[in-house]
């Protein structure tokens, strides 16, 4: 008798958690090679969010599966299929880079699983290829560059020297900047991706006589360039306007070489909102580094899922109801104003940021001015959501 009772108890304890339907979330980010710094921010912030919800996103016991995309579309595709078929996740959160997102968007959305991008925002997904199962908690890729172009135009900056890496995102950056900027463009320089020595380009800048520099040099390229630019003395002559070049991911290496340089996005860790400041403090305590925009967008992705699952009372089967709940964006975003556009991309404020040193000696970005209020992307009108 005792044995049977024991066996029954065992069986019950095994079945128990499975009966209450669990929420499974897959996170796809680069965790190897230099881009791992960015993937780590997404992973850390997402785990922090789940922890802040006591392991229950939307009031449902939650399991998080993190996989490494290795920044290789084919690798990401294989791992995402594993998430969908083996782990049967309900949401996929990813990715950091647009090329990887492009590879996984079809298989995820075709399986009627919601895909939430914590960073990548290619124009096709915002426009004609917008998807009922895709949401973004970041921005459309061009927007940060548009902010800089608008700022340069508003400030009456007469001439700009442009330098970006020679690949799609680099060319998009130039297009984005030109959308609102009508002044003179002295040079358009495209460097190889992963460029090491910028001395030739810096020499060109010194002779171009432009009032400002516009650049987009993500990751290690940005660290090298900012250092070399500062050493050349050009920092005193030209205004430094950039996106993804001086941010919380690169500032620990750039330090005071980046001081006073401008960036642009929809959030800064110094943003004066109680919720945001609480997040930054918690994040720093737990992980020992300052969170950047990547981390904020990942945390918001968790908040978004939380709000939607709560709204449908944990019923993950009714996809239409779940979608409506997601579209409502009924959560308090760390960045303040947040609503979804018809293409499931955010309508939000954008800021010009400036690199500053905190009292504890660390470097971060601070809001210099608000450039756009409730700004939506330029591709939304091409989106016919089916």
């Amino acid at each position, binding site marked *: 008798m005792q044995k049977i009772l024991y066996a029954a108890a065992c069986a019950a304890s095994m079945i128990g958690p499975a009966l209450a339907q669990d929420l499974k979330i897959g996170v796809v980010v680069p965790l*190897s*090679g*230099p*881009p*791992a*710094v960015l993937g*780590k921010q997404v992973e850390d912030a997402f785990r922090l969010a789940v922890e802040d919800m006591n392991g229950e996103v939307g009031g449902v016991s939650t399991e998080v599966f993190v996989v490494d995309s290795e920044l290789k579309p084919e690798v990401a595709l294989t791992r995402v299929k594993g998430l969908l078929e083996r782990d049967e996740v309900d949401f996929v959160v990813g990715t950091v880079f647009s090329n990887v997102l492009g590879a996984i968007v079809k298989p995820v959305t075709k399986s009627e699983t919601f895909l939430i991008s914590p960073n990548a925002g290619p124009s096709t997904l915002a426009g004609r290829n917008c998807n009922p199962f895709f949401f973004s908690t970041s921005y459309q890729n061009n927007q940060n560059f548009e902010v800089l172009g608008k700022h340069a135009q508003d400030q009456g900056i007469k001439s700009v020297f442009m330098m970006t890496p*020679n690949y799609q995102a680099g060319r998009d950056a130039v297009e984005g900047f030109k959308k609102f900027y009508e002044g003179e463009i002295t040079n*358009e*320089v*495209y*460097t*190889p991706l*992963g460029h*090491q*020595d910028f*001395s*030739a*380009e*810096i*020499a*060109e800048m*010194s*002779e171009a006589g432009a009032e400002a520099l516009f650049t987009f040099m993500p*990751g*290690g390229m940005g*660290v*090298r360039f900012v*250092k*070399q630019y500062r*050493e*050349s*003395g*050009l920092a005193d*002559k030209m205004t430094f306007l950039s996106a993804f070049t001086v941010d919380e*991911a*690169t500032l*620990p*290496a*750039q*330090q005071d070489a980046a001081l006073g340089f401008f960036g642009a996005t929809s959030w800064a860790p110094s943003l004066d909102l109680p919720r945001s400041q609480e997040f930054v403090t918690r994040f720093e305590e737990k992980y020992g580094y300052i969170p950047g925009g990547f981390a904020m967008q990942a945390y918001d992705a968790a908040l978004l899922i939380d709000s939607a699952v709560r709204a449908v009372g944990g019923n993950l089967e009714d996809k239409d109801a779940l979608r409506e709940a997601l579209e409502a964006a009924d959560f308090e975003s760390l960045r303040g104003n947040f609503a979804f556009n018809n293409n499931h991309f955010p309508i939000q404020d954008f800021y010009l940021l400036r690199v500053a040193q905190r009292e504890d000696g660390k470097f971060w970005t601070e809001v210099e001015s608000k450039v756009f209020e409730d700004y939506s992307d330029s591709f939304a009108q091409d989106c016919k959501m089916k």
Partner: protein
Amino acid sequence: MNSTILLIQLLNGVQFGVLLFLIAAGLTLVFGVMGFINLAHGVQYMIGAYLTFMYYSWTNHFLAALALGLVTALVLGLLLEELIFRHLYTRDHLDQVLATFGIILFVNELVKVIWGPGTLTLPTPEILSGSIQLTENLKYPVYRLALIAIGLFVALCLYVIVTKTRVGMLIRAGASDSETVNALGVNISRLFMIVFGFGAMLAGLAGALAAPIFTIEPGMGDNLLIVAFVVIIIGGIGSIRGAFIAALLVGVLDTLGRTIATDAMGLIFDASAANQIGPSIASMLIYLFMATILFFKPQGLFPAQGGAR
């Protein structure tokens, strides 16, 4: 494009060339003398940078860190030779490529595990941290000038060693015909070890010196390795003199190419097409140059006599 900017770009080109020479010198010796294809040479460049970074964070003294880094790079080079490369000398080139490629993957991951995936920076040594006002707007870091001086000094030393000393004579003999050298009673495997360790140290030196300018990250040597191979092929495999001249040519060509290519294409095409084509042409330039040289001189500019394999 005015003459001032042309001169600055020449200076930049020479500086890049000198750095390339430091990497290519070891590579050409190893390839020329031993007939050994060492893809892991770029890894030794990276190791030099990381070691110097590590010692710098301990000692806070650049020169001390550099010296310690070089000694460790030498030891690691010898260790790799003893443990792995020695067993590959008699294998064919494909085996060597596979094995040394494996080392690239392994060491790139290893530095990531030890130092993290992020970009690290090494400050310019205090004594060389100044800069020279080159033009009204442009300052040129003294450190870059020092880099050129060091590179030229190393080139001179190598030249003296290879042409005037007994070891140098053996290296030249080995590059021409290693079997005969062996038959004459010279301990060829010890010679190989010396050459290899020395090559590893030179690559480490290049990495350490480049670190304050180029920053430090996993895989930092991989792209430069390809350019270094272009250099030794143009210069003639096994030839120090060839490596030196080819390195300067490639450095200057690459630097000038990046400045001029887009403007030059602008003369033929409209601005937006020139912006598309120019940067691509600039990236291809050194390979086109290599192809041209190979067409006229298949052994490179200064082939080691007897022909390296």
